[in-house]
Every structure is written in C-alpha cells, then in structure tokens.
C-alpha cells in the first residue's frame, strides 16, 4: 500500500500537468539566423521570368507555381498550373505537406517580390529545400514576358536573344500584340535550377 501511495502522489500531478497543457504542435526552425541571412544575401532563391516561361512552354512537370495572394486575386488571374496557398494559410498542415518533397520546384509568386519572398523565408527556415521565388513577381512578368520591350539597336546580342525568347514565350502564353522579330541565334534563358535531393526524414523504424 505504501509504495502505491507514493507512486500515486508522484505520478498523478504529472498527469494533471500534461493533461492541462495544450499539445505542442510547433514546427522548430532548422536554419540559424546567420544561415538564413547568408542565403537571403546570396539571392539564389530567385528564378527569372524567362526560366519560368521556358518551363511552362516546355510543360516541365517538375515546376509547381504557388500563388500566395488572396483568393480573389488568384481567381482573377493566375499563371498556368499555379496552385493557391494564401500566405495567411502558409503553415497549415496540408499546405506544409506540399513542401516536404524533393521532386518538384515550388516557385512562390505574388504581385511583386515582397510577399513571395516572405513565404520563401519562412518555409526555408523550417528546413525545406527546392523552394524559389519568381523574380519581380507578376508585375515584372507582365513587363518582360507578356509585353516585352524592344531592345534599342545598340544593345548587345544577348538582349536581342532574350527579347526573341520573350516574344515566343508571350505568344505561347497568350499576351502582347507586337509581331515577333525573326529569331537571331539561340534564345538563352538561364538554365533551370537543379532539384536538390532531400534525404527523406523517415520515422524511426521500431518494433520489439
């Protein structure tokens, strides 16, 4: 009787504490502040609109565009193949499952870079990789892809190559009404980023 009494005295308060406290569902940050600062300064997370346009035109299955604006803006206009994760819902469980993979490139975009970059910072700090931000957002996308400006005659060849590529992409993606110039040389969009294989965090295999 005595040992049972002492066991009860010790264990029941612990049980009461653990029952009263809300369950811990926080996701810890995996990157330190310094590491994230280095990555943000290196600006490697940005993808140019040309690269994304190239991937869309080629129907590359590894591209996954994610619209982080509100639902109304998403329904008014979104890039082809984009899914909608408003930044307010970024950390819900189903949405986080979208990032725990190493097959697709998740590219955040918004009207400009600011909100998409915020989403990138948070998701990156939780330790997920293969996440990128559309450089310049939709504003820059409209400027460059859908209504590209004609480079002046003194520009370098690459500028013309880029312009031709943008024209072709615009036609494929449905924009701009200026007729295309004949292609000169190869269009050279930036090479698409490589997908980093992430070692899958398996649960501990157990059994007795």
């Amino acid at each position, binding site marked *: 009787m005595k040992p*049972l009494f002492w*066991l*009860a005295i010790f264990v029941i308060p612990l*049980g009461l504490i653990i*029952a*009263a*406290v809300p369950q811990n569902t*926080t996701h810890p940050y995996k990157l330190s502040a310094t590491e994230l600062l280095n990555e943000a300064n290196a600006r490697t997370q940005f993808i140019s609109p040309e690269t994304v346009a190239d991937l869309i035109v080629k129907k590359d299955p590894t591209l996954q565009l994610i619209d982080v604006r509100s639902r109304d803006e998403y329904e008014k206009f979104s890039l082809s193949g984009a899914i909608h994760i408003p930044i307010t819902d970024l950390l819900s469980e189903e949405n986080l499952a979208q990032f725990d993979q190493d097959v697709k490139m998740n590219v955040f975009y918004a009207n400009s870079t600011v909100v998409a970059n915020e989403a990138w910072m948070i998701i990156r700090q939780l330790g997920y990789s293969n996440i990128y931000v559309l450089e310049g957002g939709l504003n820059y996308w409209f400027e460059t892809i859908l209504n590209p400006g004609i480079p002046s005659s003194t520009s370098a060849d690459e500028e013309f190559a880029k312009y031709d590529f943008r024209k072709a992409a615009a036609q494929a993606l449905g924009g701009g009404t200026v007729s295309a110039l004949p292609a000169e040389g190869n269009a050279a969009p930036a090479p698409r980023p490589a997908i980093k294989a992430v070692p899958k*965090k398996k649960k501990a295999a157990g059994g007795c």
Partner: protein
Amino acid sequence: MGPLAINEIISENTNLFLAFVVGIGFGFVLESSGFSSSRKLAGVFYGYDMVVLKVFFTGAITAMLGLLFFSLFGWVDLNLVYVNPTYLTSAIIGGVIMGVGFIIGGYCPGTSFCGLSIGKLDALVFIIGLFIGVGIFGAGFNWWEGVYMAEFLGSPKISTALGLTDGVFALILILVALGMFRGAEWAEKKFPRAEY
C-alpha cells in the same frame, strides 16, 4: 532535437550502440526483478503474483510521460516517433498465440533470454520453441500472408481514436493503471500461493 538518429544528431551506428546499452539495462532490470522465474511470470494469469502487470505498466507510463513532457519542452518531434502499424486480424491472432504460450511456458520472448542468461533449462526449451515457431511462420508465409496483412488501419493512436488530446488520455491511463495496481494487490491477497 529528437529523435536523435532521425535528425542526424547521432549516426545510425551510435544509435545501435545506444540500443545495445539500453538493452543491457533492460535485461538487468528484468533479471533483478525476478523475471527469470517462469512461475513468477505466470503468476499474473493465476493471480498470486502480479509483478508483471506492475512493472510493465509502470514502464509504459514512464515512457509516455517522458515523451509527452519532452514534446512539451520541444526536445522531441512526436511526428517522427514510430507508432506500430495496426493490422487488426493478425494482432488478435498473434495476441492469442502469445498469451497461450505465456501461460503454458511461463515466459515471454524477452524474459526467456533473461532466464537463459542465468542458465535455466525451461528458458532454453522456450527459446527453441520460439525459433521453431519463427521457422514455421517464415516457411508458410505464402499461405498466411493474406491474413497477416488484413485489416490495415494505419497507425492510429488511442487518443485520436477517442477524440481526446494525448495529455488527457495520459491522465486517464494513469488513473486506470493505479486502479489496476490496487486490483492487483487485492488479487494477490485473494489467490495466495505459499511457495512458487
């Protein structure tokens, strides 16, 4: 931060070595609690010695409270902790086989190795029977694979199945366990056996 091996804070080999050390500790505790005696172990089915119930339930409650408190402090990510998958049919059949074996033989697999380590011959016979059973299961796997994999329910936890949080379920389990310990002491008084 935890589980350590999954988050690659320690390597897989260190994990195995720590498992070895913990295993030695487990065997030591079992042996020093007298779990090498098959008569003491079988007593839980006859009522004269309920130590098996007390020791294993205390261990389970300690582990449960430990994990929940570590999760509270942020030291363990509970989503990465292994929960046994539930195959309902094979769990029931396996439980019956294990229970019958326990009553007849007086050992369960872990304690049989405790008994063997101090040289008990009934433990040796139990282990031989264990390996015969494993062999039969493996040889005939094609026949009972269907039954073995039937009714897969995923890895449900009782707390989620009942709609409670883990903490509330832990408190209920503690109270139930303490009640069972009182019941065990009553049983030991009601079914005494002078010598075993």
